[in-house]
């Protein structure tokens, strides 16, 4: 009976984790550049009481065995890098990557992080930074007397000075990974390279399969509210069912105890 309890408990734990993942997805429904996670469950090992095909009598083999499983575990959460909707903001420094690629952000400690959140700003030193104030990599300085800034589809940052002449002050670069789902989430819309993601490849927007840059747009989160809510109901009901199994096991144990 203890086995039934622990099996049902793994089911409850798994469903609870699913609710946690859904809650985080829903909380980030309006987070720029957010990518939803999906959880992957796997069944746990089986206790093999009798292999299929064992001889039950001379010449007769059992058509199936007796395998008893021990529940479920959450194997991984996979970030889903489908594209979010683009939302027009009218702000020239808002950029969206239409296609594959991440912007590189340099952290104060010198490490590099990656993001698809393109709401850029200019800080007090005239440099392009994220909303949190981290520098883009490679860093791009905007002259203080610039009348307007325009970012091209290829990532070129064009500055118009008060006299009306246009000059290029830098180019945004994008990176991609062999396995983007392997990137680790670091909060602040930032992702970090891991052993699983593989090394980044750098490139120019619009070339070699990299997405191009769309200014005045932001990429919204790719969370679909209805899908998440449906999953939430499913998870809640499955949780309930597993708790029913524990209750039923408890009742059976009580019956046994009453006999003795």
């Amino acid at each position, binding site marked *: 009976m203890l086995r039934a309890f622990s099996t049902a408990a793994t089911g409850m734990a798994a469903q609870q984790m699913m609710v946690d993942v859904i809650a985080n997805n829903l909380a980030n429904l309006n987070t720029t550049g957010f990518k939803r996670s999906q959880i992957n*469950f796997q069944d746990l090992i089986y206790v093999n009481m009798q292999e299929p095909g064992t001889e039950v009598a001379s010449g007769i083999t059992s058509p199936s065995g007796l395998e008893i499983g021990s529940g479920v575990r959450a194997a991984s959460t996979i970030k889903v890098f489908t594209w979010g909707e683009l939302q027009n903001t009218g702000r020239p420094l808002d950029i969206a990557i239409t296609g594959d690629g991440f912007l590189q952000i340099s952290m104060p400690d010198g490490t590099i992080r990656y993001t698809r959140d393109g709401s850029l700003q200019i800080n007090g030193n005239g440099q392009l930074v994220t909303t949190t104030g981290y520098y883009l990599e490679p860093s791009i300085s905007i002259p203080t007397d610039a009348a307007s800034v325009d970012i091209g589809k290829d990532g070129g940052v064009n500055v118009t000075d008060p006299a009306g002449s246009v000059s290029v002050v830098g180019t945004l670069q994008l990176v991609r990974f062999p396995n983007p789902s392997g990137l680790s989430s670091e909060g602040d819309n930032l992702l970090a390279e891991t052993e699983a993601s593989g090394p980044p490849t750098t490139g120019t927007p619009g070339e070699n399969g990299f997405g191009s840059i769309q200014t005045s747009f932001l990429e919204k989160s790719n969370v679909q509210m209805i899908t998440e809510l449906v999953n939430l109901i499913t998870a809640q009901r499955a949780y309930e069912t597993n708790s029913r199994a524990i209750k039923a096991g408890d009742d059976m144990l009580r019956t046994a105890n009453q006999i003795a």
Partner: protein
Amino acid sequence: MADTITQVSSSIDALMQEFYVITHNLANASTVGYKRVANAFSRALEAQGAFADTYSPGTIELNSAFDFSQGGIVETGRPLDLALHGKGFFVVEAPEGPLYTRNGMFQTNRNGQIVTSDGRIVACEAGPITVPQDVGISELTVSGDGSVSSRGTALGKLRLVDFKENENKLLAVGASCFRMPDQDVVPAAAEHIVIKQGYQESSNVKIVDELVDMVMVSRLYEANMKLLSAQKEASSSIMGVAMG
């Protein structure tokens, strides 16, 4: 009398085992590609109950078989979520020999190879598929027969196999995988199967059916326990008479 007790206790053992199977199915109600374990002991027992003369739970064979029926197909939109529709399995390369799975939630690893979420390489018709560095996962197209391509260039074809009538010999090893213990069984190439890209095959556990079975198991268990306690009382009163 000892006979009845033996039969009742073997019946109780079987019911407990069925209960474990049901809890395992319920725990996997949300596991992608999971195939429910069917255990028909309580149903067989109930059917026998209709003919009281032949009631003999000890003679019902205890076994469990996987129910390989199709699970529901759920859209996710993720390019490497591959659902199988029809009979067959993906082949996964493992050090101890090939494993078979219907959980098609794949990823690419750091070398660009298509792997399961455990990092095991998904077998293809000719060597593992490596996604070139300049191709994003969103550009991968997987056609119904398992051919993987990107921007019109073929990268390879996923291997799909079918065990046909030997399917029930498969052993579950956990992590959504099965293995074939019988060395002589060679799987054939799957014929009646379609891969759907951007979908998952959900678990084929039907919660209501499992709950109904659970209620039946609990009740039969209770009934057997009652029988046991009636036997206990009968034997103690006989002993009382005999001992004076």
